[in-house]
C-alpha cells in the first residue's frame, strides 16, 4: 500500500522519511522537496505528477541514488541509501534499480542486444547466461527478433521497449520511469504502458513513474501529486489538504 503520511510500516519496500532537497541558485535557496514522506510496497505501481519544476525528476533521481538529499532518508529493501558512499551507491544502483528514460538513453553504437546486456556485465554471469537473460528480456518486450539492430534502426516505441528490456534484465528491486511515454505517439505510448502494466501485474515488479500525462498516470495503482515540495494524493489535492499538514 502506498502512503505519503510517513506512517507506513517498516516492511515497506521503499521508505522515504523527511526527504528534503534544496538547491542554491545565485544567492537564493530553492526548496524543491520539503520533508517528503513516502511508503511503497513490493508490486506497487505509483505515478508522480506535478507541474514542471515541481521536483518530480529530482525525487526520482533521489530514489534511484543518482542524487543525494539535503536531509532525510531513503530506505530500500532494508538498505539506507542516503549515507552510502559514491561507489557503494553505484553498486547498489546496479543491483536494485532499473531505469526507463524519456529519451530512451540507449547507446547508439551498440545493438539492442548489447544495450540490454550492459547491466549484466556488472554481474558474475557467464557469457552464455548473459545471452539467455538478454534474449528472455527482449522476448518479454517482443523484440527478440530485432536484437541485432542498432537503436537508429528502431522506431521510438521499439527503442523504449529495448530500454525496458535493459531495465528488467538484471531483475532489479524496482523500476524508475521518467516520462516513459513522453517522446512517443499515443499508440506507442499505449503499448509501452501495457508492457509496464504487464511487468507489474504478471511479473510483480514495483514501478515508480513520473509523467505529465493524466491518461498514462491513470494506468498506475496510485497517482501522487507533487505540490510545494511534498506528495499529495489526488483526493487530498482536490480537498486542499496536503500530507504532513502543510497546505
Amino acid at each position, binding site marked *: 500500500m502506498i502512503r505519503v503520511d510517513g506512517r507506513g510500516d517498516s516492511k515497506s519496500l521503499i521508505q522515504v522519511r523527511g526527504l528534503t532537497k534544496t538547491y542554491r541558485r545565485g544567492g537564493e535557496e530553492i526548496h524543491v522537496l520539503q520533508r517528503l514522506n513516502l511508503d511503497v510496497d513490493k508490486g506497487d505501481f505509483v505515478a508522480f505528477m506535478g507541474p514542471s519544476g515541481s521536483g518530480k525528476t*529530482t525525487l526520482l533521481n533521489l530514489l534511484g541514488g*543518482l*542524487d543525494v538529499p539535503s536531509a532525510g532518508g531513503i530506505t530500500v529493501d532494508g538498505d539506507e541509501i542516503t549515507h552510502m558512499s559514491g561507489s557503494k551507491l553505484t553498486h547498489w*544502483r546496479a543491483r536494485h534499480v532499473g*531505469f526507463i528514460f524519456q529519451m530512451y*538513453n540507449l547507446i*547508439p*553504437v551498440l545493438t539492442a542486444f548489447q544495450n540490454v546486456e550492459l547491466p549484466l*556485465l556488472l554481474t558474475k554471469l557467464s557469457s552464455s547466461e548473459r545471452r539467455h537473460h538478454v534474449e528472455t528480456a527482449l522476448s518479454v518486450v517482443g523484440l527478440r527478433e530485432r536484437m541485432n539492430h542498432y537503436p537508429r534502426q528502431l522506431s521510438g516505441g521499439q527503442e523504449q521497449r529495448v530500454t525496458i528490456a535493459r531495465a528488467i534484465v538484471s531483475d532489479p528491486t524496482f523500476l524508475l520511469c521518467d516520462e516513459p511515454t513522453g517522446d512517443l505517439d499515443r499508440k506507442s505510448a499505449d503499448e509501452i504502458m501495457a508492457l509496464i502494466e504487464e511487468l507489474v501485474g504478471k511479473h510483480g515488479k514495483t514501478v515508480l513513474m513520473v509523467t505529465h500525462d493524466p491518461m498514462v498516470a491513470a494506468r498506475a495503482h496510485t497517482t501522487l501529486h507533487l505540490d510545494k515540495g511534498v506528495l499529495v494524493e489526488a483526493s487530498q489535492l482536490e480537498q486542499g489538504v496536503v500530507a504532513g499538514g502543510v497546505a
Partner: protein
Amino acid sequence: MAIPIVYNIRSVRARWTSTIVAVLGIAGTVGVFVAMLSLARGFQATLVSSGSPDNALIVRAGATSEMTSGVSLDAVKVIQDAPGIARGADGPLVTPEAVLMAPIPLVTTGTDANVELRGVSPNVLEIRKQVKIVQGRMFQAGLAELVVGKNANTTYSGLTLGNTITLGSVKWKVVGVFDAGGSSFDSEVWGDSRLLSEAYNRPATNFQSVTVHLTSPAALSQLKDSLTSDPRVNLDVTREIDYYAKQSTSMTTLITRLGGFVAMIMAIGAIFGALNTMYSAVADRGREIATMRALGFGGPSVVFSFLIEALLISFIGGALGCLSVLKLNGLTTSTINFQTFSNLAFAFKITPDLLIMGIGFALAMGVIGGIFPAIRAARLPVATALREL
C-alpha cells in the same frame, strides 16, 4: 566487468572526423620520432659494423680518432712482432694505414665533399673479412690503382670502374669496387698506403693507425698488455668494433637529441589534438556516460573506458606513423662524420624495436591526452547529464 571495448571502437568509428585530427597529429609525431631515431640507428650501425671483434685498432696513445693519431714505421715493426696477432701466408695480418681526405664532387650536386682515402696493405682483405671485391679486382701494391667502396662508387663523380682520377699529384685508375657490408668503409677509397702518402707529400713512414687481426677475440688483452708495457712505443690498443662504436657516439647522440627535441615539440601539439578530440568525445557523449553511470558502471570504469579509447586512437596514429616511414628503411643518405670530417653514407635503419618505441611513444601521448578528459567523464553530474539532449 568494464564497459565493453566494442563501445569505444564503434564510438571512435562513429566520430571519425574528430578522431582523424588526433590520429594524424600522433602519426606525424611518431613518424618524425621513428625517422630521426632510424637515422641515428643507421649512422651507428654503419660505423659499428665497420669494426670486427677479431680485429684490434692501434693508434697513438691519447689520440681520440685516427685523424689525430700518428704511428711511425718503427712502431709498426714492434706491433708486427707482438703476441696475439694472427699470421697469414705472407706474415702477420697487420695493415698500417694512412688516412687522408680528398675533395671529390658529389654525383647529385656537383659540389665537393670530403672523401676518406685510406692507404692500406695489400693483405687488408684478409684482415677485414667483411670486405669483398664485387666488381673488378684488388689494387696491386706499388701501382697507382684504387678500389672504391660501393657507396663511394655511386655517390662521387669519377669513381666508376675503369675511370682515372687525379688525387694529390698522381693519376689513379679505379680497378675495383668493394662491398664492406654497409659499413663506413663503403664510403671510402682504398689504395696503396705508401703511394697515397707520397701523392699528398706526406712521409710514407708515418701512418694514422694500424689494424691487426687477432688469433682470437680473447687475444686482445695479450696484445694490449704487450704493447702498452713496451717502452719503445706509446700506443693505445682498442678492439676495432669498440673503436667504431665510440666514433659513432657523438653523432648519434646529436641526432637522437635533436630528433627527440623535435618529436617532443610535435608531441605537445599532438597531445593537445588528442585532448581536444577526447574532450569533445566526453562533451558529445555526456548522456551516454551518465546512462552507463546510472546503470551501475563506476567512475573507474568510465576513466578506463575513455583511456582505452584514447589509447585506441593513439595506437592507430602510432601505427600509421610507423607505416608512413617504413619506406625510409634502407634509404641511403650521407652526412659529415665529425670524427674524421669525411662524408659518410649510411642508410635509415628502421628496426622492430624502433617501431615498438614509436608505438610506445604514441600510447604515451594517448595516455596524457586521454587521462584528463576521462577523469572529467567520470565526474559528470549523472542526474544532469541524463537529461542532456
